[in-house]
């Protein structure tokens, strides 16, 4: 039998059984596209979460006020509203924790901010010059807050790009202009660079002012909402965390660490917690995808097996008129391969389109992995070939009469 005839026979067989071919391909398409899309979404979620964790800085320990807990009862206050950390605590950390590379206390609150008639409600963060280094922020235009600003209680502000766009419009030169917060005018001295993403509150939509100014004119007291401490390296993080806890417990006169009125958060712990969450998420998606693959596989199997009787008789007939065993094996293999490859191709394209759509709609930055393509392709090819080719191979080994009589 010539190769061209083989191709034609395959084409004839597939087009003569349109419903069968269609359902088989559908099974493969569903299996493959769901595996690819699900894994891409899982990987994308993992990447997005890790990115946003990395974007808040590196080797960070965050100290935040906690609920004040008296012995025997608990007062639950919202985390942001608790006022247990003061500027003095921050100064003590800067002075005592020598292992720390940089310390940046901040006080943040949401305010209505206006500029030339436009206004927006955004987060105003009072902080120190070390903040950009600690929290991984870059300056796009102008400068960040300096020590002089801090000492002089200067009314200056550095805008995040989103805050700038909201107040002045995109691409407008904002440095040098003024904004008003609670009726107080601030001169804009710089714009930070876009970080993108979000997660832990977008740093693009923030306005930074000197912490001293914030405490005096906006908050009216000297509490702080977060103290970010950057360790030299990841090894020293645990030690620093311990020292800070000891120092603050001491300063707050608390002997039982269980009753601490503050929380320390280690970035490594956040990363670990988040990756275990995303891991679970990916496993969940993979399980769903696996089920689709199995369902698709059963569909393929079902289609192939229900036609075994018909195909076995066909094989008997072909042998009776002189087909060699190899010619039959090869024809049915070509058929199974053609089906799985056609389905596989459509499945890969569809899975990729779904991932692309999810990315495009801004839901998640998905990532189609080669591994998922190979896995999905491999499984469906194996199913197609095992259930399409194997029964044919067995039938081709029968003598023509036995194959023709097959029930």
């Amino acid at each position, binding site marked *: 039998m010539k190769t061209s*005839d083989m191709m034609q026979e395959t084409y004839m*067989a597939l087009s003569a059984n349109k419903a069968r071919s269609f359902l088989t391909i559908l099974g493969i398409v569903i299996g493959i596209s769901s595996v690819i899309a699900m894994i891409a979404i899982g990987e994308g979620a993992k990447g997005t979460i890790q990115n946003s964790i990395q974007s808040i800085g590196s080797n960070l320990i965050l100290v935040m006020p906690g609920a004040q807990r008296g012995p025997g009862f608990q007062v639950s206050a919202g985390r942001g509203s608790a006022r247990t950390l003061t500027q003095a605590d921050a100064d003590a950390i800067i002075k005592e924790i020598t292992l720390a590379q940089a310390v940046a206390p901040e006080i943040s609150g949401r305010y209505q901010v206006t500029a030339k008639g436009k206004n927006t409600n955004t987060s105003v963060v009072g902080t120190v010059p070390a903040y950009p280094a600690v929290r991984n922020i870059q300056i796009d235009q102008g400068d960040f807050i300096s020590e002089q600003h801090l000492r002089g209680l200067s009314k200056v502000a550095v805008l995040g790009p989103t805050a700038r766009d909201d107040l002045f419009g995109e691409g407008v030169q904002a440095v040098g202009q003024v904004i008003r917060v609670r009726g107080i005018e601030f001169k804009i001295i710089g714009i930070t660079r876009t970080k993108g993403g979000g997660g832990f509150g977008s740093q693009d939509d923030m306005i930074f002012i000197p912490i001293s100014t914030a405490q005096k004119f906006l908050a009216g007291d000297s509490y702080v909402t977060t103290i970010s401490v950057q360790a030299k390296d990841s090894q020293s993080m645990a030690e620093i965390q311990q020292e800070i806890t000891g120092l603050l417990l001491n300063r707050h006169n608390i002997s039982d660490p269980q009753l601490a009125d503050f929380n320390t958060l280690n970035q490594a712990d956040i990363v670990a917690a988040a990756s275990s969450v995303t891991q679970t998420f990916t496993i969940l998606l993979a399980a769903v995808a696996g089920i689709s693959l199995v369902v698709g596989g059963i569909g393929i199997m079902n289609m192939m097996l229900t036609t075994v009787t018909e195909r076995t008789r066909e094989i008997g*007939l072909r*042998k*009776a*008129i002189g*087909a060699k065993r190899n010619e039959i094996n090869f024809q049915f293999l070509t058929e199974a391969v053609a089906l799985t490859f056609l389905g596989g191709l459509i499945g890969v394209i569809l899975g990729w389109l779904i991932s692309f759509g999810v990315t495009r709609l801004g839901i998640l930055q998905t990532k189609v992995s080669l591994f998922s393509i190979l896995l999905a392709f491999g499984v469906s090819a194996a199913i197609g070939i095992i259930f399409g080719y194997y029964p044919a191979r067995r039938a081709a080994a029968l*003598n023509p009469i036995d194959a*023709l009589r097959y029930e």
Partner: protein
Amino acid sequence: MLEVKNVVKTYISGDGGQFQALKGVSFKIEDGEFVAIMGPSGSGKSTLMHILGALDNPTSGAYFFNDKNVADFSEDELADLRKNKIGFVFQQFNLLPRATVIRNVMLPLVYAEVEEKEREERATLALKAAGLEESRFEHRPNQLSGGQVQRVAIARALVNNPVLILADEPTGNLDTKTGKIVLETFQKLNQEQGRTIVLITHEREVAQHAGRVISIRDGELVNDAKTRV
């Protein structure tokens, strides 16, 4: 041309019971003979025919084709034998249900690697020789009458120009007139081209066309007579 020696065929049914469809049949058919096999229903005619067509193996005994024991043939040699030497008309026709008439008839030529142009010509000729109207060539077997399907099956057996034609009740579904066309075709092939023909029939008149009648009853050869000398 062919010889069967003491051929026994035992069928084993699902429940383990055994049934001897052929109980030691022996005969010889020479090149160019036209033989009719007769016998009551269930006597083992089709079973014998399958063995002659190298489609099934005897349980014991031997089948020689051109003095070679078919049991010694490899799979590929068997395929070549079926493809190049033998044309078989099944009692149940056995056409590909999803292929058109013309494709069904061309199929043996595909395996014989005949050029594509030639296939269609030869298939058309064979179908005409079997008496099928050209308007039916693009039909599927399920769109044909029983007699038309039978003619397609005959055409498929003739298309390879086999030296041995084995036909299992080739006129069973045909009216007298079409039956006659088919028989005349066989006769012409036999007389003008010297092809060996073995056909199974229940009808005396059909057997009249043959030069020899082999009678079978309950799996045994009961009579073997030349009708013409």
